[in-house]
């Protein structure tokens, strides 16, 4: 390598004047060199595979949703964009089928909003605790435990939402009349499947994501800023809330975006706990269907390949993919800029 640097191949006078040994180092073919190049090429191919995956995802979604390969017609070649975005009903199975994406978007939004209300503050507060208050020993116990929470499969969260959260937490609070037999209290109807339970479990699920990402950005805030705060007579609370959090704000927002994009893409928990009935509602106690749940619903059934219902799957998945992609991209860019500021 150093030989390459000192005597570039474009420098024949030097090479010839130093005799054949040095030039041999540069030009001579060896099996060793071939092997090195071969290995580098193979590793480059591994890295390129990730780009291929992205291209494959885009190709699959676009070819079924936007531009069909000639004999086949894609979803948007049969259903107009105006129906997709202006219709308010999503009923692909009915005989005059309706393909308005809004009920699915609404369900997804409801889940993401509830999950955000629960997961984002909790995650941020625990990140502040871990980075500012906890002793190294406490952190060494709490962090791996929170990572375990992130490792719980989503199907388990779904079961937890449907069989534990709804009957033992939401129902007793909203329907004390039924559960405790007190009939003079409020009695709010709750569906067996409801957006609230789905949102709650997705919120629990994103806590570790928010926590570990925010903790990283909080810890990256330079010590000097904290010390300056103390020198001006701030209490620890002032330093946390008025110095550290504002300095890390862009990173925290990036973490929030990433967590919300996870909530949008979350599938099994919402399919199991929030139901499979597309409804245009903002009532968190009714049954809804998210975009991801619709995909699961169609794919676990026996929908014949080539029907419009089958193609609608790809259109929904395309919307889902683009939504999460935009959120992830913004978040990546914000995080990259944040790293530049403090490093």
């Amino acid at each position, binding site marked *: 390598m150093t030989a390459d640097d000192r005597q570039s191949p474009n420098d024949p006078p030097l090479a010839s004047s130093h005799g054949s040994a040095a030039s041999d180092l540069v030009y001579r073919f060896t099996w060793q060199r071939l092997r090195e190049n071969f290995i*580098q090429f193979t590793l480059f191919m591994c890295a390129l595979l990730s780009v291929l995956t992205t291209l494959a995802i885009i190709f699959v979604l676009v070819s079924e949703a936007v531009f069909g390969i000639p004999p086949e017609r894609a979803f948007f070649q049969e259903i107009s964009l105006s129906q997709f975005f202006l219709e308010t009903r999503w009923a692909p199975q009915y005989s005059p089928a309706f393909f308005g994406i809004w009920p699915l978007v609404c369900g997804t939004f409801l889940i993401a909003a509830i999950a955000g209300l629960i997961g984002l503050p909790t995650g941020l507060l625990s990140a502040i605790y871990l980075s500012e208050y906890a002793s190294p020993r406490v952190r060494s116990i709490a962090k791996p435990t929170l990572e375990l929470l992130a490792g719980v499969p989503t199907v*388990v969260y779904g*079961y937890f939402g449907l069989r534990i959260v709804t009957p033992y937490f939401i129902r007793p609070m909203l329907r004390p009349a039924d559960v405790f037999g007190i009939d003079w209290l409020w009695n709010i109807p709750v569906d067996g499947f409801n957006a609230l339970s789905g949102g709650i479990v997705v919120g629990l699920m994103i806590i570790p994501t928010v926590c570990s990402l925010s903790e990283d950005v909080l810890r990256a805030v330079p010590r000097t800023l904290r010390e300056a705060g103390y020198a001006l007579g701030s209490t620890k609370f002032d330093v946390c809330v008025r110095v550290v959090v504002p300095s890390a704000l862009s990173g925290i927002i990036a973490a929030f975006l990433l967590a919300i994009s996870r909530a949008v893409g979350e599938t099994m928990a919402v399919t199991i706990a929030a139901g499979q009935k597309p409804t245009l509602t903002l009532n968190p106690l009714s049954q809804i269907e998210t975009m991801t749940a619709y995909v699961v619903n169609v794919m676990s059934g026996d929908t014949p390949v080539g029907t419009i219902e089958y193609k609608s799957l790809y259109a929904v998945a395309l919307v889902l993919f683009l939504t999460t992609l935009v959120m*992830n991209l913004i978040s990546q860019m914000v995080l990259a800029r944040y790293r530049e500021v403090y490093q």
Partner: protein
Amino acid sequence: MSETPTPRRPLSPLPEKPPIPTTSPTTFVGGGLVEESFDLALARRHRNGRIFEWVCWLATWGSVLILGVLIAAMAWQAFGWLTPKFLVSMPKRNPAEAGILPGIVGTFWLILLTAILSVPLGVGAAIYLEEYAKPTLLTRFIQLNIANLAGVPSIVYGILGFTAFVRMFGLARSEYLISFGIGTFQLTLPFGRTVISGALTLALLSLPVVIIASQEALRSVPPSLRHASLALGATKWQTIRYQIIPSALPGMMTGVILAMSRAIGETAPLVAIGAATYITFTPGRIGSLSEVVTRPDKLAQVPFDSFTTIPMQIYGWINEAKPDFQHVAAAAILVLLAILLISNGLAIYIRQHFQKKIRW
């Protein structure tokens, strides 16, 4: 929150009640009033601080508590249903006799194949990006692309897997029979809803996670090690093979185990590719452990056979109408959580253990 005078860690480097400077001009102008309000304000700030710390503490340990509640709730639901027989029986229509054996075996084969496919590719990509790649536009693009792939919803990978592996875009359609002398091995070309389709899908899904974790492990190897090896005349690959990979191995293993335990719990992509929820045989129809050695045809058939996994079985049981199946689902969840707890614990142990041991 009442202010109980319990001994606690000082909240700030400032003393609780700083002495009021008597030489301050305010004492002459405003008399006792200014001192009083300063004291009060400081006390309020400290009280707010204490409440805030308490709230932060609650948020952290509350989240940890949720994990406990989750496991306790599952144990309560599964009480009496998680028996040794449950682990070794096939699923049945009768909840009392249902078992999880095909799920356990299916998960094993699926994750084995996923690891074989994704670990070399992921580690290779990470080595290229950390050791070879120059900071060109292409490298930055690949890096950004990997970060985004890690955020793509798993159901989208499921759709990709269904279209590309299960259906193969509706193109190929052929069957091959290969005779082993003691049996015949059958390969169909659109892979269909088989173990290999699932493994390819999960491999694509876990590839970005493996790459990112391995990159972090490689980055933590100090440059002096590379310089020393190159200075002694080792080639680039020799340096990587004999110095860098061994040093980064614990970190890589932690990342790989975490990625694989995420893959164990994945359900959505498997629902999308149409893995079975109810199946009464194990992949390859291998009946006992000895058949792995004595029947190579059955072993070869494993990747091309239908399968189910533990999460798929759980999903199937949750959708069952009979209420008793909910307890069966909870029992299966406990089995799944136990497997994940062991693998995650192993990953965390490797990280903690080697972090202490290796000192540069």
